[in-house]
């Protein structure tokens, strides 16, 4: 187990290096920081633009590999460079990472949890109304792009608030600025702000997980070992819970590591649309400004989380299925 894990970690580290290099190369090629400086009013003299670009190591006239070498040397020492406005990327990263991690964690937990439950429920009620409704729901959600979904939710909340007469669901920011009151009141406020972004992130997951879990559960429902469990004297429901659920989750672990990427993309839109100061909205801003260092920092965060999700999926698989434990 330890050997397997350490091998896996080494693979992850290699992947991380490759992905960082690629994201640096792509952002350097695609983004145009010079335009950000040159477009200011009044137009600054070319020499001062050159000076600023050089000080940020963003000058496209310097070979990109040299720039990457400089950046990665500092990154190895814990310094991710400066944003295009001269602030520390590290500081910005620190302010924003918690927001995104919260959203991603809640989205993942709610998405997988509800998705698995809905899938099992649909499988047990196969062909009946709940199953059909869930099928329709899943296909609707999966066929609507995340940002459209977020806008629809926002609009729905707006209408609800207007109908009720006061603000039930908040859709801007992570919390109400300057709100006074105790811890409970703060939590309540945060929860109110969380509903829509979390729903945006989780809905897609619920839709896709429930489809996969439904299939996995149907496979298990027809399996010999579930019949054995019933022959021992377990009622069908208990047999499924004790003997079917865990086996049906085994194929889901593979899906988890892939599904996380979609979830991450969804969170970028959710942050932007609901005004959360997280990594996703930073990424959007930075990409517009041509802020290479910030974009690379967000990509680094994305790589780490995706690789972590893969690692979690691997560990889950080993925990769930004794047949893969070896060596």
């Amino acid at each position, binding site marked *: 187990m330890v050997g*397997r894990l350490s091998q896996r970690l080494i693979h992850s580290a290699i992947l991380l290096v490759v992905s960082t290099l690629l994201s640096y190369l792509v952002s350097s090629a695609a983004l145009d920081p010079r335009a950000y400086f040159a477009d200011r009013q009044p137009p600054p003299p070319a020499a001062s633009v050159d000076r600023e670009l050089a000080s940020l190591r963003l000058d496209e006239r310097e070979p990109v590999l040299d720039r990457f070498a400089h950046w990665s040397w500092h990154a190895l020492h814990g310094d991710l460079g400066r944003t295009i406005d001269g602030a520390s990327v590290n500081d910005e990263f620190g302010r924003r990472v918690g927001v995104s991690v919260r959203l991603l964690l809640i989205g993942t937990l709610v998405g997988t949890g509800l998705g698995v439950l809905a899938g099992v429920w649909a499988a047990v009620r196969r062909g009946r109304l709940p199953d059909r409704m869930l099928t329709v729901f899943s296909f609707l959600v999966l066929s609507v792009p995340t940002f459209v979904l977020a806008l629809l939710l926002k609009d729905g909340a707006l209408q609800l608030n207007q109908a009720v007469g006061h603000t039930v669901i908040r859709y801007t920011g992570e919390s109400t600025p300057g709100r006074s009151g105790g811890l409970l009141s703060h939590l309540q406020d945060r929860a109110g702000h969380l509903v829509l972004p979390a729903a945006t992130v989780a809905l897609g997951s619920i839709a896709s997980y429930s489809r996969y879990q439904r299939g996995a559960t149907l496979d298990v429902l027809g*399996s*010999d070992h579930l019949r*054995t469990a019933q022959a021992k004297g377990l*009622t069908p429901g208990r047999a499924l819970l004790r*003997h079917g659920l865990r086996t049906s989750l085994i194929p889901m672990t593979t899906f988890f590591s892939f599904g996380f990427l979609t979830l991450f993309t969804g969170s970028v839109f959710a942050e932007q649309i609901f005004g959360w100061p997280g990594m996703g909205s930073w990424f959007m801003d930075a990409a517009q400004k041509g802020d290479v260092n910030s974009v690379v920092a967000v990509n680094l965060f994305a790589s780490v989380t995706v690789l972590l999700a893969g690692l979690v999926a691997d560990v889950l698989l080993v925990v769930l299925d004794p047949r893969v434990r070896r060596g």
Partner: protein
Amino acid sequence: MTGGAILEVRDLHVSLPGGRRSAPVPVVRGVSLTLRAGEVLGIVGESGAGKTMTALSLLGLTPPGAVVRGSVRLLGTELVGLPVRELAQQRGRRIAMVFQDPLTAFTPVRRVGDQIGEALRIHQRPRPTRESALRRAVGLLESVGVPEPDRAARAYPHELSGGLRQRAMIAMAVANRPDVIVADEPTSALDVTVQAQVLDALAVARKATGAALLLVSHDLGVIAGAADRVAVMYAGRIVESAPVDDLFSRPRMPYTLGLIGSVPRLDDVGTLTPVPGTPPAPGTAPPGCSFAPRCPIADAHCEEAEPPLARVSGTTAVAVPGAGDRHLAACFHTGTTARHTAQELFPPAVPGERSGGPVAGSKPGAGAAKAAIAGAKATAPGLRPGADHVLRITGLTKSYPLPRRSGLRLRRRPAEALHAVERADLHVRRGETVALVGESGAGKSTTLSEVIAFAAPEAGRIEILGHDTAHLRRADVRGLRGRVQLVLQDPMAALDPRMTVGAIIAEPLLAQRTDKARAAARTPELLRQVGLDPSAAGRYPHEFSGGQRQRIAFARALAVEPELLLLDEPVSALDVSVQAGILELLRRLKRELGPACLFVTHDLAVVRQIADRLVVMYGGRTIESGGVTEVFTRPRHPYTKALLSAVPLPDPRAERARERIILPGDPPRAGGGTAGCLFRARCPVYQTAAPEARALCERETPIPAGRSADDPHVAACHFPYPDGKAPLRHRPASKGQL
């Protein structure tokens, strides 16, 4: 031994949903049976007869959508229509089940001991703790003969062998001392030596708990050895039921007679009686007796009315519903059946199968075939001079690299390998049939695939028709492929479903560059030869039954008049009455066309019927070979002797008298570089041998040797049985090699 009725089944009907917009399919049609305390009732029948569905419906475990009518009374409690919760209380406590495949029947992600313990924790009150349930599970495992029960209880199902898993399944079934155990084909997925252990464990568990056993099996040998009474099922009904001796010695229903006559026997080479045709598919049973279309003595009456299951007395049948000990048969002509033998009613000379379309009316074109062969032989390049062997394998070794263990490694370790075949020797002479037998993992299939690879083996030498495969050119390979043909186990998988039968049969000829017209001209003759109507050529494989498809596969193999026919379990996927037809076909083809055959099988009774010589494999090594009669009557290797003794006989009296050597443990996956004799861990001779004799078995790998230098009967054992009775204890029979 037997007491009052414990389980009473009356007029049980089970229908399965037939899919969208079609009517439900009846699979069990009016089954009545009585199981008394301590009794073993065998249910026997071929695939599709409704055995398994009957067994499942007793516990209410029919698949979703199934409709069950009738009555199942377990100690006075009606189980049909019982609410789920109350039914669950009966299951596992008063009626328990042992399933066919113990790998899929256990939950793969939970420990075996916990799963057995769970059966206790569901029903025992006060509820035992997890620990005490686990302790009792260990005791249960020990009681069914599981070695190291502690370790087995802690293992996951995939970590145990098939035999151990099935014994654990039995331990789980008897955990709550049920009144009735239902066992559905409990040994069908197991090797024959392991089957013997499991049947033994089942008998032990049954005696310890006093449970009555309903044993469902397609294997008449298993039924003959274990059952007190037998019910024969056909097309969803019980067609005959009687005490086991009566049923086997005086069957009254023509189907039973044909079925018993079609079983190949280990202790006898007789004429097998194939029952023509195939059983009706569920839902398509004719209005009258469902066996009437295949029955040689059916008359108009049989085709109009379905005969009731009635008591047999002399020549008339008197209806006595629910009679226990009596001989019942569902036939209008029980008297006629009683006056005939199976050979008289089902003459094996009838080529082909009668129902299902292609009917062979005319005699097969044997003369034409012979003429064709003679012509072909004259032009085909013959054997190299001096070679009367069509196949000669010496010292064949084939290993597969094992997947390397994961984890960090700084130094490269040599990859471990699984030796599937190790120094195997085998030869087939012209016109001879050699059976290659062994249990799973013995290396039979690997040997066969090495032969058809037409390439240099890893080690050793393969000579096909006098050509060493290590020195073949491409042109040689093409030529040889035309002279060596293959018939596989599963005829459905082996025939391209999108090709017509005619195209399938012509393909090997076209591959040998015969022109199309001549290939097409051969097709009707080939079809007649295998007992099919030439009109079959225009149809597709799915239109034929399993037996007919295997006949098509034979026709394809014979198209190029091969000198060597390789047969890989050609009858194992078939029902026994159909199998008999294929074996008769093979005998006839051998007589008329005379190809040499290498017949790979695990079924020793089939070997006895068909082979001239046999080669026994164990753990990748060939451990005994010789003439069939010689080896069967005087086996010299202790493994061969135990293997032969483990085969159940389809005759209750012979079965009771049979000497049983129950080997401990499981067949090895493969030997692989092990020093000494591979069999010694299970060997009864080794177990009782003196220390110095044991040392020899541990140190030196025995090489095959006969009693004299030119003895064709050889065994790879240091202490072979000299005459099949007592083993030699002191003198090594052969000089071993290191």
